[in-house]
């Protein structure tokens, strides 16, 4: 096993996912097989390969600092699970771990 159950729980917690022990075990197996694929990649000799941060060989794609009209508020709020006239509404977040 490449991952411990505690590591899976930690990742679940970071993603704010509530998971049962059973789900954690299933997820560990799946994540494990993903990591196995990466281990296969690590066997390649990349000594002569320049590191890149992006799959496209491009740089400097910019736009000018010109504002454009935004979206209508009602359209932006349309799919919100909960809203009022002006804002999205969400459950109160308590500021602590």
């Amino acid at each position, binding site marked *: 096993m490449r991952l411990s159950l505690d590591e899976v729980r*930690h990742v679940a*917690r*970071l*993603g*704010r996912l509530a998971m049962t022990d059973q789900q954690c075990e299933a997820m560990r197996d799946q994540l494990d097989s993903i990591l196995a694929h990466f281990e296969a990649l690590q066997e390649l000799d990349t000594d002569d390969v320049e590191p890149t*941060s*992006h*799959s*496209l060989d*491009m*740089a*400097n*794609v*910019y*736009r*000018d*600092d*010109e*504002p*454009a009209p*935004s*979206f209508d*508020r009602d359209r*932006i*709020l349309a799919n919100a699970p*909960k809203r*009022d006239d*002006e*804002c*999205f*509404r*969400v*459950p*109160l*977040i308590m*500021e*602590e*771990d």
Partner: protein
Amino acid sequence: MALEAIIGLEVHAQLLTRSKMFCRCSTDPSAGPNTVVCPICTAMPGVLPVINRRAVELVVRTGLALNCSIASHSIFARKNYWYPDLPKNYQISQYELPLCRDGYLDIDVNGQKRRIRIRRVHLEEDTGKLYHTAGNESRIDFNRCGVPLMEIVSEPDMRSADEAREYLVALRQVLRYIGVCTGNMEEGSFRCEPNVNVRDTESGAKTGISELKNLNSFRAVHQSVDFEIARHTRLLQRGETVPRQTRRWHPSDESRGGYTDVMRSKEEAHDYRYFPEPDLVPMRIGDDWLSEIRAGMPELPQQKRERFVSQYALTPYDAGVLTQSLEFAQYFEAAVAACRAGQVAEAAKRVSKWLQGEMSRLLNETGQDIADVPARPEHVAELLELVEEGKLTGTIAKEVFEEMFRTGKPAPQIVSERGIEVVGDASELERIVDQVLADHAEVVAKVKSGKTQSKGFLVGQVMKATRGQAVPQIVNDIIDRRLGV
């Protein structure tokens, strides 16, 4: 124990762009809630960000002003965390390869020069704003979400709350000079999070770092850093361990002084799982672009201070006060340039004194910015020349200036509208002096016999005769000449 405070500052500055970082929504802070939002800045599925070139240039400009090395190759990264003000559940930020690194800012603390090193300056996006309601819900306004934000991280080089405040003041001054940020702390366009701990320089023992939040004024930064240093010192002396924590500052109120308390402990907070942003290609700052940005750099506060000292023969103190804001410095220079007569240094001295005196007093009283004052620099120059020529007394000039400050009318107009008699004609003043001397022969005799303190009486009589509109120093000179003392 020989204890020493270790303070580093993280500053977030909103960049002065017209549109957001990755979409074309306006950055207008006065827009109604959720009216400057679009699918990109609210993270609707399938959207892609595009980098605002201006924001990159403003960060590079900041890096140059802070003596940083500018990365020729720089990338964005995703910083992953969950919070309702962040609709993507990640913030596009920079981690490896920030735009600027390894700079410094020189500050002056109680007359001593200190060099504070800058670790990095990077570009990211701001989050939305949460408003807590009375119930158990929050309201979210995403207008601020995606506004370009620059993070400036210092090395932990500060050793006192005074140094932390001076660094922050100097940093804000630089950002304002180069036009990248308004520097408004109350409105949150310039935010500061100090990292504070204490070290025993003999044993090497250290307390855990406190990261301080909720500081929206220089005063709050100073007080909270002081509070934390004292708290860490106390605990370290007692031999207690101080854990790494994020702490919130509570300003003082009637019931108690300001204090900090724990917001969260740090175990999980730093697990942001950064990785290169796949939606954005790298930035390359070539020599051409860099020299273009460099060419657009204005004079920095320190350069301006030094030039004021050499060009206008001002003291370093006066140069410091006059260059506190770019607008103030520009006003000063325009007023000196508008002075006709005499040497530059003389004119500069007069203008400097007036701006630091009357002008600053009225600016403080009215809360105005010098750029918005109707009285223009050339009007101030003209007023000061009337004083210099002895046509207005200092007292009258102050009155005239109050009206000028409000209305922008030139001094001669105010003088004639108010019917102020300008006692400028030297021959008329001499005539009045002669009359006073003739009327008070016994006092004249006293002065001549060496009782020079009686001269004040004669000056007073002349002032009375001119209804306070003569210049005492000039009257004094005339009397001296007449009496040969």
